[in-house]
């Protein structure tokens, strides 16, 4: 398939490209210059440039929007909200049947859900609240939903939170990895974050119950705060890394090598 990726130079983009580059024709776009050594097709493009996104989307089968901007109020709206608007206008103009968007879990399961409830699943009504990142991403998702209802465009939303290096379980937090702390909401290895995008691109339409489906992306975790059953069942996504060292205090130095279990 021909896949247009918006915001592809961020943290997640390279892992999505790695998962898909040998299987699909990718046009990678980003507001920044390409990473050194990137040899694929590349276009410098801001995700909120409606006309530019429409032009870039011509001839594409799928659009994947991985653009993210968190702290700056103007830019957060431009990228997180208007970026999805641009994507949906482009999908409508070119009759592109599938778009994939991404964001944090709390664009759906906002503070009230997270503080009060368990077994949170991606089919709940969104309640993002007013935190800038969650709110702007939720508005973007709502725009996708409206376009999907009106035009039948298949929207798949992938919701992440912490993303970790598989080798030492460090992420974007300063000071290196922290083990054995509260691991809610959830963490996912970068490689598996990328393969979730691949799974969303490739899932047969008949496996999707509606034209607008959302998934929490994380491996099996013991806290049961969130539920990841849907992504495994529907997308067939199977994470290779379980980030167990983050939460299992016996993971690195099991007493008696666990012989007492027998």
């Amino acid at each position, binding site marked *: 398939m021909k896949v247009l990726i918006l915001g592809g130079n961020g943290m997640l983009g390279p892992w999505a490209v790695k998962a898909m580059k040998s299987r699909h024709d990718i046009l990678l776009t980003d507001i920044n210059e390409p990473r050194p050594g990137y040899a694929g097709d590349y276009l410098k493009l801001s995700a909120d440039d409606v006309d530019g996104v429409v032009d870039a989307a011509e001839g594409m089968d799928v659009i994947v929007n991985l653009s993210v901007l968190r702290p700056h109020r103007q830019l957060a*709206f431009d990228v997180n909200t208007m970026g999805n608007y641009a994507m949906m206008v482009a999908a409508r103009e070119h009759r592109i049947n599938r778009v994939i968007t991404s964001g944090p879990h709390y664009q759906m399961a906002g*503070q009230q859900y997270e503080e009060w409830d368990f077994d949170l699943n991606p089919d709940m009504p969104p309640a993002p609240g*007013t935190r800038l990142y969650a709110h702007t991403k939720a508005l973007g998702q709502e725009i996708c939903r409206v376009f999907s209802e009106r035009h039948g465009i298949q929207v798949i939303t992938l919701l992440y939170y912490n993303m970790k290096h598989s080798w030492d379980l460090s992420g974007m937090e300063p000071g290196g990895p922290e083990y054995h702390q509260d691991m809610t909401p959830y963490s996912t290895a970068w490689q598996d974050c990328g393969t979730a995008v691949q799974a969303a691109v490739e899932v047969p339409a008949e496996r999707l119950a509606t034209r607008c489906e959302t998934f929490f992306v994380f491996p099996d975790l013991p806290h049961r705060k969130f539920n990841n059953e849907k992504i495994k069942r529907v997308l067939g996504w199977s994470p290779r890394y379980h980030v167990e060292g983050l939460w299992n205090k016996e993971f690195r130095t099991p007493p008696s090598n666990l012989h007492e279990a027998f």
Partner: protein
Amino acid sequence: MNLLITSAVSDTAKLIANGLSGKHNLRLTDLPESATAGILANKLDHEAETDRLVADIEAIVNIGFQGQTGSATHIMDYHTRRMYNLLQAASDAGVRRFINISTLRLFEDHEENLAVTERWRTDPSAEDTELLGAHMAEYVCKEFARDRLIQVVNLRLGWPFDGSESDETATISSELIVAAVEESLVSDELAEWQDIHIQSAVENQRFITSTAAKLLPGLAERLAR
């Protein structure tokens, strides 16, 4: 009461401002490219200028539908980012109530025989950017109310204003619009997020207005046929 009215150049804002003038202290605002004499030019950015705009304001009447004209990108940006900035500034300043003027056209694709109430999900168009903008403005408002930062009254008005044709089954009079805003400013029956549907009592009336009659009791007589 000290009131701020947004998109003051729009016909809806003028109608409301004319009806409220003399009864309240009005502060009118619109974007710099639109603002005329007597209207404060404000971009509704996230800078201190927006904080100053809402200082000492007790309630805001926000034109959330057909308040702005321009490109689709402008309409979408206004009804998302600038609404967020306004609501954030208002909640920081302790503004008590935010009256969002929306539209019953968010249900216009429903057949007329359906008894649509405030508990029905809206069905906005993706093609009509004004309607999509109205929907997005409602979304932003609702999240501020959900977080208990400000009380929002979402007034969905019928259409057209002051219609006179017999097939205009959702019409609303100018007088009723002003009265609904006035009642919304003072009612103590309202939830933190309160949708209210309002149209004139006409033959084959399209939308049910019993919520308005109950929560805005000063309107009950006008809403009864």
